[in-house]
Each structure stands twice: as C-alpha cells, then as structure tokens.
C-alpha cells in the first residue's frame, strides 16, 4: 500500500501560492536586499528616522527620567505624547517641570539625593544663552552655539523630523494629485487627457521657485503651508509617469476583462490598473522627497520657509552664513545634513528603479 512519505505538512493553497510566487513587490524586495547602494540608502534613512522619531531622547533640556525631591518625573518622555489628542488627560507633566521658568539642570541637585537621566544632548533647541554666543565646538556644545547661544547640535536634531516630514508630506500631496490626474488622463484619454496635459504644460513653464515664494506670501509660511505649496507644485512629474503607464495598461486584457465584468471606471483605474503603474511612480516620488527637502532648506535659507524659532536645516545654514567670519563652524552641520538627506533619497530612488524595472533586472 502507500508508504507514509516523509512528514510533509500539506500547506493550504494560500501559503503555497505565497511561497511559490512572492509577487512583484516580494521579488523587488529580494532584489533590493542584494542592492548594496540601495541598502546603504536604506540604512541612512533608518538612522534619520530614528533621530526623527525619538527626538526627545537625543536632545532636549528636560531629563528623560529623574528623581527630584523624592519624586519621579518624566517630562521629556511625556511631553511628545501630548501631540496625541486627548493624551493630556491620561498623562500629564508633573508640577515643577510644567513651568517654563523651571530649569531642571539647576534644580536637580545630586547632593540632595536627586538623580537624572539626560538626553544625549542636554540642551533645548531654543534654549538661548546670552553669555555663550557663537562659541566654537567644545565639550559642552559638541557643534558649538549659534548667534543667540543655542546649541547647534540640539537644533540640528530637532530639525530632522521637520525636514523628513516636509519631504514626505509634500510628496504625499503631490503623489495623490499626480496619481489621480495622471491615471484619469491616461485611462480616459480624449478631452480629459488634453485638459490635464495642458495644465501640466502650464506648470512646467511656471517658474516654480518664483511661484512658490509668491504662494508662501499669500499663505502664511507655516510648516503646513510650506508642505501644501511644495506639494501643489511638484505633482507634474508623477502625473506624467502615471499617464504614460496608464496608457500602456489600459489596452491590456485584464483591463478589458474588468470592464466586461461591469466594473466602474474608478474601480478599474484605482483598483486594477494603478497598482501596476506604481513602480515607476515610486522612483519619481523618492527623488521628489529629496527635491522637497532641498527646496525647503532653500526657502528657509531665504526666510520664506518654516518660521523661527523652529529650527530647520536651512535656517541654521542661514545663521552660519550671517556669521560666516565670526563662527564658520555653524555652516558645516546643516550642509552635511542636507547633503546626506538628499543623497539618501537619491540612493533609494536609484535602487528602486534598478529593482523594479523589468528591462534592467533581466532574469534575476
């Protein structure tokens, strides 16, 4: 009779299919992992995200956790939680630490049995010191201080989430507009296509940087407005790629099949076709994030970006420029940060193109 074979668990169909066919994105990820420069980009990106997500652990004037007059306080950890709506009812900052005038650095006295765990950089980004202006790097201030005595390293760290957020939110807005406009133009063709193409052409000829400056005068230059304006003026590249992809895809059999089954136009476009047009668009988005960070720093430099006292890489660079002879040390950290951020996104973008372009990957 049938001998019991080696013990093989019979996997159900879904897991079997998943094992045999990792899918387009699964394959892309496998190739990405073997892409050295792509992985360097990803590692740099992870490092920046780490700084951005855990900013209070890296720099701030409040201790992460401390014992003050016999009680435990955790202001630096609790305060960021308050950005979540309603969180202030659950956890609140305990008393003396709540007051802006309270200086934990002076109050915490180890001789009285207090102790504290400080962030890596124990200075606040907006903590001024009239006696320590434009000081060169020292042990206390690793990257020196700026024109009002603020710690440059702390400001650099606190500018990181701003830069990343602007890059990604601006490109998120651009992606939504670009995908929708490009997909509809490419799929519907005809008048919609002509209309969208004309608008794209107008946007290409608009002197983008000029118009961004004007738009930031119209809308107050808050961080959200900077993101919105940057997003509104950088969707054309995404729209053009999406449009080209959709024109290729709309003639495919599966699009026809979906139409024959009576699927609505939005369903065909957004559910069936768009996911297949996403790969080349993703590459454009990665480069776009680099571009947005690049432009925002330029705007901050001109004083049109995110407003002071909020630290941004561009505004720190500007401070360095204004004090070029007295304190040249200030220009280097923001230069390096902008360079690394742009380089990271370029590396990721190039790697994404390499791993998702079927013409380049061959049989791999």
């Amino acid at each position: 009779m049938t001998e019991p074979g080696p013990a093989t668990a019979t996997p159900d169909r879904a897991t079997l299919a998943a094992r045999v066919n990792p899918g387009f994105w699964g394959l892309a990820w496998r190739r990405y992992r073997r892409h050295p420069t792509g992985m360097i980009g990803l590692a740099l990106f992870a490092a920046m995200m780490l700084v951005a997500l855990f900013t209070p652990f890296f720099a701030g004037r409040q201790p992460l956790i401390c014992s003050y007059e016999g009680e435990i306080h955790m202001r630096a950890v609790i305060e960021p939680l308050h950005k979540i709506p309603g969180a202030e009812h659950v956890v609140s900052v305990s008393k003396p630490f709540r007051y802006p005038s309270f200086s934990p650095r002076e109050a915490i006295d180890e001789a009285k049995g207090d102790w504290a765990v400080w962030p890596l950089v124990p200075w606040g980004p907006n903590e001024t010191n009239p006696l320590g202006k434009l000081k060169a790097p020292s042990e206390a201030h690793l990257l020196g201080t700026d024109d009002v005595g603020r710690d440059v390293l702390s400001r650099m760290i606190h500018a990181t989430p701003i830069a990343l957020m602007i890059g990604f939110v601006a490109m998120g807005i651009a992606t939504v507009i670009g995908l929708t406009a490009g997909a509809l133009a490419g799929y519907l063709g005809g008048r919609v296509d002509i209309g969208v193409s004309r608008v794209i052409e107008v946007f290409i000829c608009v002197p983008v940087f000029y118009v961004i400056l004007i738009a930031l005068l119209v809308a107050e230059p808050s961080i959200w407005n900077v993101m919105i304006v940057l997003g509104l003026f950088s969707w054309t590249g995404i729209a053009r790629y999406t449009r080209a992809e959709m024109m290729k895809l709309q003639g495919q059999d599966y699009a026809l099949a979906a139409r024959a089954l009576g699927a609505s136009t939005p369903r065909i476009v957004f559910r069936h076709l768009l996911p297949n047009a996403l790969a080349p668009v993703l590459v454009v988005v990665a480069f776009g994030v680099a571009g947005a960070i690049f432009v925002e720093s330029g705007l901050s430099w001109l004083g049109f970006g995110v407003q002071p006292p909020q630290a941004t890489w561009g505004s720190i660079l500007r401070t360095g420029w204004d004090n070029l002879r007295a304190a040249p040390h200030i220009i280097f950290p923001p230069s390096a940060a902008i360079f690394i951020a742009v380089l990271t996104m370029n590396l990721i973008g190039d790697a994404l193109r390499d791993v998702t372009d079927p013409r380049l990957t061959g049989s791999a």
Partner: protein
Amino acid sequence: MLQYAIRRILIGFVTLVGVTMIVFALINAIPGDPAALQSDVQDPEMSARMAEMLRKHFELDKPLHERYVSWVGKMARGDFGTSFQDGRPVGAKIVARLAPTMSIATLSVILGMLAAIPIGLVQGVRHNGWFDRLSGVALYMMFAVPSYVAAVLLIYTVGVQWDLLPFRGLKSDGYEGLSALGKAQDLIAHGTLITFCYTYASVAFDSRFVRGTLLEVLRQDYIRTARAKGVAEHVVVLKHAFRNTFIPLLTRLGSLVPALISGSVILEVIFNWPGLGRLFFEGILARDYPVMMASCLISSVLTLAGILLADLLYAVADPRIRYD
C-alpha cells in the same frame, strides 16, 4: 518643420496666458497692500491719503480682471509697466538684469557639456574601470549637494579663508579705473564661483547620461561591424558611437534652461549677483507687483524657448525625427 515650430509657438502663447493668469492672481492675493507699505508716515491721516493716491496711481483700485487685461494690453505693446519702488520702467530693469543671468546660464551649459561629455565617454569606454568607479562615486555625491550649500561652503573656503576669489557682486569697487584687460580679469574672477555652483550638478547628471547612452550605443550592431572591419577603437568611439550619444543629450538642454533660470534666486542672492532671480527677490520683498510679473513672464518665455529650441535641435541633429 517650420509649420511645427509655428504650431508650437502658438501653443506656447496659450500656455503663457495660463501661466500669467495664475501668477497674476497669486500676486494680487498677497495680503498687504503695496500702496499702504509705501505711504507709512507719522501722521495716520496723511498716510491714508497717500495710500489712496498711490493706489489710484498703481491702478490697484480697479478689479482684478480689468487690471489683468490692461496688463496684457500693455505687454502686447512691449510695455512692462513701471516699478512700484522707484517709478522706473520695468523693461529697463529687466534688460539690465538679463545679461548677468543669461551669460552665467549659457556659460554653465557650455562648460557643463564640455566637462560632462569627455568624462562620460571615458567612463563608458573604460566601463567598470577605476576611473569609471571613482569618478562615478564622486559625481554621484556631488549631485546630492544643493547648489546653495556648495555656494556657502565654497565662499567660506575659497573666498574667506584663502581669500582667492571675490564673491560679492559682478565687479569690484574700482572697476571703472581698470584697463580693458583688468576689467575682463575682474569679471572672470567675480563670475568663477557662481558659474561653478551653477554647473557642477549638471556635470554630474550629464556625464552619467552620456555614459549610459554610450554603453547602449556600443552594444549596437553597427559598432560591432565597425570593429570587425578593423576601424581603430578611438575612431569607433569618437566617430561612430559619440555622434549618437550626443542626440539624446540635446533633449537635456530643454530641461536644463528652466532649472538654471528658476534655480537662480538663491545663488544670485548669495553671490549678490545682479541678475533676474535677485531682481525678482527684491521685487517680492518690496511687493513690487510689476517687477514680479515681468520676471515671472520672462522666465516662462525663456523656459518655453529653451524647450522648443531643444526639440528643434533634436530634429536637426537626428534625421530620423520629423515633425510633420
């Protein structure tokens, strides 16, 4: 070809109307009133009266569409209006600023190509050799440095620390007293750093582009044929392959021009360069609407012209491309 060019120019006019309408509406939506800005004196009553007069003088009291139509009408007659700041004709201001910007832009395109083509060719020929790898990495890094960052770093090292080159403005203070040779030297010295900042990123991009196209072209059959019949390698590369890598490079010109013009604001402000970008920036700070409109228009026109020129050159260089 001529028909194509005419059609493109006509479409270009339609595009320009779109651009100017957007910009005009945006500029006029800026909160704050240039008339009030200029008439701020001690006596509030006097201020209000002056603002009223200025508003009438600037035609700010008329509705938006009327002002747009009158602006287009003046434009069609070549009248750019008068500056809100000093009452001088905007046309003259633009003309004065055109040469510094355009000379840097042209120079940067030419120098960029002159540097990028040989680098890309050597990289492509010695594909994966040490020069290819080393210069590839260096240029890739350079491409990630924003031009204003490079400008600040270069000004600090070359301009301040080593005191080698001037970095403020177009000429030195004693320019008028210099001999012709001295004048030329002075201009070149002032233009060196800003030209470099305009150029290096496109060298990085274009050399990669040349390398890529060359590698593709070198795989073609006609190259194998040329090699098989014993043509010397340098002739194969320079005569057979290079000509075909040059054609796609021409399309890059079209996208380069807008980037150069639009990217000029920060660099011109940093270098105090009296160009279009800085004119616009000064205009924006003073809420000088006619100057802002005119600079936007000029840069759109130059962009359109750049794209059209690239497309036409493309057809001239490549007989396979025909616009009929």
